[in-house]
């Protein structure tokens, strides 16, 4: 089933337009009980990353290379063992939509607003407006199980935007969708971000997704992760997947990944 795609007609006013930046310097993060001794798993090592205000930075790497750790560092969910993390407040959107099954779509999207202390009615109004912009008109009162995978991800994205965080961390946001819906959602995300640029750190193992969406693509090594290559995607939007420059960049990224 193809879902309707359209760009938000105007910049949604309620989601804030302030832009934050992200700066990671020589970050190291280890896991395991014996963290300071040998045998601990080093998730990321000597990792540096910058995202300028309004820039979309994609991070690709082999699975299990510490990409999720990277986002948790940016969101302040974990502290680095070494190095510095300097990031504006960030919201995390995970691969799984993590919608609350007992809440209607409109209430799910309004979750962060409710946390911030906004009244129920006001929160629902703002969230309903954004859901309409996202092509979910008529589904405001639907429970998550009544929505398709793509729709659920859009509700999750609305919730992330409404958190008012200036940095968005997207952790393989479309990986759980089927191939067709995934492409659709990638195009949709590009459209949704076009009128309201955001600082985005997008983690993915889908090289094409990275190239199509990002301004800059960082290729990570296997664990412990560090940056092995940095590709500028200097192609104007809207982009076509078949654009020769994008195809060439994709080839390069795959080479760097060692695929």
């Amino acid at each position, binding site marked *: 089933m193809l879902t309707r795609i359209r760009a938000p007609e105007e910049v949604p006013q309620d989601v804030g337009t302030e832009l934050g930046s992200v700066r990671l310097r020589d970050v190291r993060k280890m896991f395991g009980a014996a963290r300071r001794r040998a045998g601990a798993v080093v998730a990321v090592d000597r990792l540096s990353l910058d995202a300028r205000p309004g820039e979309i930075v994609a991070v690709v790497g082999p699975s299990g290379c510490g990409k999720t750790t990277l986002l948790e560092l940016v969101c302040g969910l974990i502290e680095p063992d070494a190095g510095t993390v300097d990031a504006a407040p960030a919201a995390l959107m995970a691969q799984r*939509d*993590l919608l609350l*099954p007992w809440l209607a779509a409109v209430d799910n999207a309004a979750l962060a607003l409710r*946390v911030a202390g906004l009244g129920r009615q006001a929160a629902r109004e703002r969230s309903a407006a954004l859901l309409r912009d996202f092509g979910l008109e008529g589904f405001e009162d639907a429970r998550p*199980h009544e929505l398709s995978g793509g729709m659920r991800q859009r509700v999750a994205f609305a919730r992330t935007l409404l958190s008012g965080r200036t940095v968005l961390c997207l952790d393989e946001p479309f990986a759980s969708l089927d191939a067709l819906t995934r492409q659709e959602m990638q195009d949709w995300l590009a459209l949704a971000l076009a009128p309201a640029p955001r600082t985005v750190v997008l983690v993915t193992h889908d090289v094409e997704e990275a190239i199509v969406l990002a301004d800059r693509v960082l290729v990570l090594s296997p664990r412990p992760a560090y940056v092995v290559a940095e590709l500028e995607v200097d192609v104007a939007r809207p982009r076509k997947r078949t654009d020769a420059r994008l195809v060439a960049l994709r080839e390069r990224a795959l080479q760097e990944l060692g695929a």
Partner: protein
Amino acid sequence: MIAALVALGLVALWEAYAQLSGIDDFVLPAPSAVATALHDDRALLWSNFTVTAGEITLGMLVALVLGLTCATAIHFSGALRRALYPLLIGSQTIPIVLVAPLLVAWWGFGLVPKLAIVALVCFFPIVVPTLDALDRVDADLRKLMRTFGASRWQTFRMVEAPAALPGVLTGAKLSVAVAAIAAILAELAGSDAGLGNLMLKAIPQFETARAFAAVLILSVFAVALFGLLALAERRLLPWAHQPRGTAP
């Protein structure tokens, strides 16, 4: 449907055996004798039933209040979990049969010792599924709430508590059956009314059919209570019974 047929068949067999074997009515009353007792003693059964039903429902309410408070406290505090959980399990090994007369000696023949015993028995089946449900809340949901700047309490109120409700209902359903047994046990230990009291008095009076009628009423009440809770679950928590996507 099949359950009803099986029950009907068993009752028929029982009736046939009681009629044909010439067994004494006070040893094994026929279903028809129980039915007669149910009709003839209805006023007596009803007045005793209201006492026992009150003990069961109030006792379960006490267990729910205490159990949910305790589960929440344990959920919030690792120290409390280590301190209370072993005691909680220990409380389940208390031989109620021995404690019940003691409670009656302390608190008399009234409602209080009954509530204490029913609550003691129901407490555990309520706390364990509730705690399990709280513990099973997706860690990623907690992370999500943290990136939104939610306080520990907000995360509990908006995410963990609703997610744990199916566990609470499961615990309540589990405790219905043991609550009925506990109420009867408490009445046997010392009481002046209730279905257990009635059974205790009926058997030496060779009114076995009346005791069976009391058992029947108690079973029907427990099944009805269970059904009510199952209905509440379906009405209040439809999301817990519908096909879910990837959300927990």
